[in-house]
């Protein structure tokens, strides 16, 4: 099944291509239904709003490539937003230093995931489910459930609300991270080893890949990128609360899977993830323009994820059914 097909037909049936077409249709539909959907300002708005989920989705792409998962990114975003607010307001650190410390703490939190997964060889699913609860719980405990951080200086808020050369200020940051991940996944030996681990961790180990170090790298990077997303989130909304980023892991995982990265590991691309993020961002924004309630977006994202997963499993099911039919035919002949 994994034979590479070339040519125009193969290109047309790639999940990224299908997703691109869906995205264009989505765009035309919302442009027709909503009033200001297709304007430049709104496009900037979509970019602004999807940058945090986009960052998380980028961080999840190599993790899912290795056959792992990280459910804790949304909770870590919340925790990092709180820590950033705490460092700035209560520890009186200047903003750049507070940002640096937040990124460091994000790396530390990612390191906790990495240590449990690689040192104790625990499944990523249960580890990150535990840290999902732990990080959100710590954020709630630090703020006692009510404290919020506001009144950030205007120079910091410009990072989330201002424009830079006509594009939203977070666009260059997002672009830089996306380029970094593109290089990591598609242009470096790291990307090769992620795929190898996703296909078969044991095989990768026999091939001389330092599996544990590679795995630790992607989880620590996910921690740093979640912290960066927390900073952008705080700058965009102008406040940091303990419930920041609740449910973002669902959107991020959906974006990655929509983009054609196999949830079983071993295959996927950064372009696909970027397309998936755009599709979800446009859906979220378009529903607002089409005057639909906000819960619709969460529900549709869940449904979309199920449909795409079912679609991706369909070829495998068809081929097993065919094989079974062929097997019974052969058995019939021989008897």
């Amino acid at each position: 099944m994994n034979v590479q097909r070339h040519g125009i037909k193969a290109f047309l049936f790639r999940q990224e291509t299908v997703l691109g077409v869906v995205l264009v249709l989505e765009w035309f539909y919302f442009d027709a239904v909503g009033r200001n959907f297709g304007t430049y300002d709104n496009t900037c708005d979509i970019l602004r709003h999807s940058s945090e989920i986009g960052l998380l989705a980028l961080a999840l792409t190599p993790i899912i490539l290795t056959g792992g998962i990280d459910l804790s990114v949304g909770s870590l975003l919340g925790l990092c937003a709180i820590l950033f607010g705490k460092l700035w307001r209560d520890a009186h650190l200047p903003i750049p230093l507070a940002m640096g410390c937040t990124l460091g703490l994000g790396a530390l939190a990612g390191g906790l995931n990495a240590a449990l997964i690689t040192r104790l060889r625990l499944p990523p699913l249960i580890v990150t489910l535990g840290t999902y609860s732990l990080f959100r719980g710590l954020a709630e405990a630090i703020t006692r459930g009510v404290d919020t951080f506001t009144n950030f200086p205007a120079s910091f808020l410009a990072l989330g609300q201002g424009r830079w050369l006509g594009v939203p200020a977070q666009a260059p940051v997002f672009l830089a991270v996306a380029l970094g991940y593109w290089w990591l996944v598609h242009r470096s030996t790291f990307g090769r080893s992620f795929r190898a681990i996703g296909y078969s961790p044991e095989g990768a180990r026999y091939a001389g890949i330092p599996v544990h170090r590679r795995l630790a790298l992607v989880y620590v990077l996910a921690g740093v990128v979640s912290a960066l997303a927390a900073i952008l989130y705080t700058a965009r909304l102008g406040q940091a609360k303990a419930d920041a980023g609740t449910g973002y892991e669902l959107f991020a995982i959906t974006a990655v899977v929509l983009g054609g990265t196999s949830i079983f590991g071993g295959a996927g691309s950064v372009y696909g993830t970027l397309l998936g993020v755009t599709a979800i961002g446009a859906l979220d924004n378009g529903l607002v323009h089409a005057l639909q309630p906000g819960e619709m977006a969460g529900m549709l994202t869940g449904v979309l994820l199920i449909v795409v997963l079912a679609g991706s499993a369909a070829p495998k099911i068809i081929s097993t059914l065919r094989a079974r039919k062929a097997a019974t035919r052969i058995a019939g002949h021989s008897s």
Partner: protein
Amino acid sequence: MKRHFRELSVAAALGVLLLALALCAPAFYQPQPLLSLATRQAPVLVVACGMTLVILCRQIDISVGSQFAVCGVCAGLLAAMHWPLPLVLAASIACGAAMGAFNGLLIAGLELPSIVVTLATMAAWREGLLWLRQGVWVDLPDGVQWFGLSQAAGQWTLVMTALTLLTAMAFAMTHLSAGRFIYAVGSDAEAARLAGIRPRRMTFAVFTFTGALVGLAAMMNVTQSPQVDPNSGTGLELKTIAAVVVGGVAISGGRGSLWGAFVGLLLLACISPALTFMHVAAYWEKAIQGMIILLAVAADGWRNRKRNL
């Protein structure tokens, strides 16, 4: 002794906690608050029984909290339409079983990973319910709360229902072939298939059965108050997974028991009142829950590592 080391060590931790409570906060042992605590945990125990089966099968279900909310609201709406209570109960169980079967169909039928499927259904059910009902509470007619019995009788009914179910299921898991099949599928699906078990059918059945249990638990929760909260069951998946994992059920499937999950749930259920009595604020609860999950799996990982060397 060695076979049940894991369960016994959790039971020992529970004993230490109860002893500490007896010394520091004897007020914990008044019968009425204890009965209320047990009643509140009864639906959680029912869901935890289902979660144990799912994890024994080497799967996971994080949509139980959303299923719980949907079943609860369905039961509430039907009760408000003055359906007889047994019918409401049956409808709630059927509603849960249908949602469980949907998960099972995707996981066993299409061989999709359970974590992603149930993550999607978790969001779809919860947000769909919010969208349809706009977060409105359902008022229940008289005679639904505590099944129309007195409060104490209603509480005892719920607690005894949960305990009976636990005992029956624990018996089934060790003495009935269906129970042994679940262990077999969780330990090695391929070996189970070669032994004549149909692993995919078992997985589907386990998810459907868990859904039915969630429906029952939702009904047990509905009868505890005069209104139905559409946001009930938030975090239920974490609570039950924590109980199951703390109770020594291996997340890699095939190892563990319902009694372990029961002791794990008791330990977790006593921690929150213990925190209150020891003047630790309630907002630490989620963090402590996460830490307990991590500690439990880390301890298992540590033991397995030593065994492998």
